[in-house]
């Protein structure tokens, strides 16, 4: 089984982003970047499947500018066998990313695409489902357990109110929850080795992808803070009094 893993470079989850003063976007210059946490889970799962003998090759792919190759190096350090980047100077909308990934899947012919459920910058939660649609494949989103069984995948999904287990025919697209695994700690020698590995590059035009934006960004702002006036109460009795007599919620 060959696995394609999609990884995105995003602002590190510990960084609090700043909005540009003119409200035209988020300032990502000089901010710490990292692999999207859900994608780390996806890479980890792919590498584990190969280590268990269920997969023969793991290929990492990202769509982005030259700087985004950093996350491909991380994927290689995790243990991916190859890495490729679809070049795009501008960040693309999920639909365009899904088309680029579909074109890559067309070339690479994987049996499984593993990817995060959500990129923590745009928080769209779309690309995996869109990709499965373009390819005409089955999808299993929000996976917290994945197992190969008789040539198909059994995937436990995290859903509202519990869990649902699907059997999905291969090839398929699976998107990950953080619960799926605990990504390994990358050691320095693996990173050093990854730095020397080659990265293949592809152009959007070469893949025949029309990435024209569909949405127009009108501006960004910070959400209004909750109304000031938060009160520190000094005892449980005072708390219950406020909830009963001031807020009237109990």
């Amino acid at each position, binding site marked *: 089984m060959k696995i394609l893993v999609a990884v995105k470079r995003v602002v590190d*989850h510990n960084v*609090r*982003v700043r909005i540009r003063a003119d409200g035209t976007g988020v300032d990502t210059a000089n901010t710490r970047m990292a692999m999207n946490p859900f994608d780390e889970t996806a890479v980890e799962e792919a590498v584990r499947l190969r280590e268990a003998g269920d997969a023969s090759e793991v290929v990492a792919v990202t769509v982005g500018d030259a700087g985004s190759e950093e996350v491909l190096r991380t994927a290689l350090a995790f243990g991916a066998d190859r890495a490729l980047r679809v070049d795009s100077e501008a960040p693309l909308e*999920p*639909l365009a990313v899904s088309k680029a990934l579909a074109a890559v899947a067309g070339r690479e012919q994987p049996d499984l695409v593993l990817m995060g459920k959500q990129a*923590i*910058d*745009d*928080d769209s*939660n*779309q690309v*995996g*489902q*869109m990709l*499965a*649609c373009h390819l*005409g*494949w089955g*999808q*299993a*989103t*929000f996976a*917290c357990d994945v197992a190969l069984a008789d040539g198909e995948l059994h995937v436990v999904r*995290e*859903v*509202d*109110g*519990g*869990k*649902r*287990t*699907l*059997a*999905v*025919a291969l090839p*398929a697209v699976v998107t990950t929850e*953080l*619960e799926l695994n605990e990504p390994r700690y990358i050691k320095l020698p693996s990173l050093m080795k990854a730095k020397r590995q080659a990265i293949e590059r592809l152009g959007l035009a070469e893949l025949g992808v029309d990435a024209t934006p*569909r*949405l*127009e*960004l*009108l501006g*960004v702002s*910070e*959400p209004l803070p*909750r109304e000031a*006036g938060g*009160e*520190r*109460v000094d*005892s*449980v009795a005072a*708390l*219950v009094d*406020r*909830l009963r007599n001031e*807020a009237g*919620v*109990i």
Partner: protein
Amino acid sequence: MGVLVFAEHDGAAVTEAARRAVSAAGALGGPVDVVLAGGDGVEAVAASLAGTGVSRAWLCQGAPYADQLAEPLAGRLAALVRAEGYEAVVAATSTQARDLLPRLAAELDTQMLTDVTAIEDAETFVRANYAGSVLTRLRCREPVKVLTVRATNFAPPPGDGASPAVARLEPGPDPGLSRLLEVQATDSGRPDLGSARVVVAGGRGVADAGVGELEALADKLGAAIGASRGAVEAGLLPSDAQVGLTAKVVAPDLYIAAGISGSIYHVSGMRDSGVIVAINKDPEAPIFEVADYGLVADLTEALPQLREALEQP
């Protein structure tokens, strides 16, 4: 013409979130129709739409739809959208909507919008990203708009009488790409987290006091139980109780955060609650920044005390 709402239901009635999705859809202009997917029982659900202003309820019946398989359902809905010429498809954010709508949007070759928090007009939308720390205003001129809405940001429909007309959809093909093996429903006997009036949420900090204390408090208040990721990771509470941007977004009248530090991922999932109470032994915990009432205390003492105080009239 018109808007199609994918409405989730519990087999008897549409969810409160679905009702709010209907009112959000109304803001797009034009008549609002609803599609109800499920098995034979779905007919009965249509009656619960009385007074929501919905014109027509499509019943999409069959085993693959009842099993919530995204592939056949997205295909069937895309065909319906094309046949009826709908200009928008709306659903309340949920795991099913997040599974289904992007696939439907891809079928329709449209760039969808996730978790819309405000609809300014039929082409102008606001949504939150970067874990809720940024609000983005967007113009969408796609011929068919596809969006999930955060139900907690929209009011329920006013509710004036008439029931929708009911129409049955011919089942579409099932490509047979996936099948349902098992459903594990968490049945806590407590109210549904998404629509509960009161949520008692525990974080990693409830470990010392014990989950039993948290549950006792929730039962006292008739509340749903919520969890931070810390509590889920520590194995204290089940993952479907997780509140947060990447989990469930809630806005109850009262949200009690016990032993939760207040990371942005958690806060963006509950900051629209009516009244927020934080109980934490660390006076510097960021959760206090969003709390209406903050109590610096150890939960081993505060939780039993709170339960006892509630027993007094």
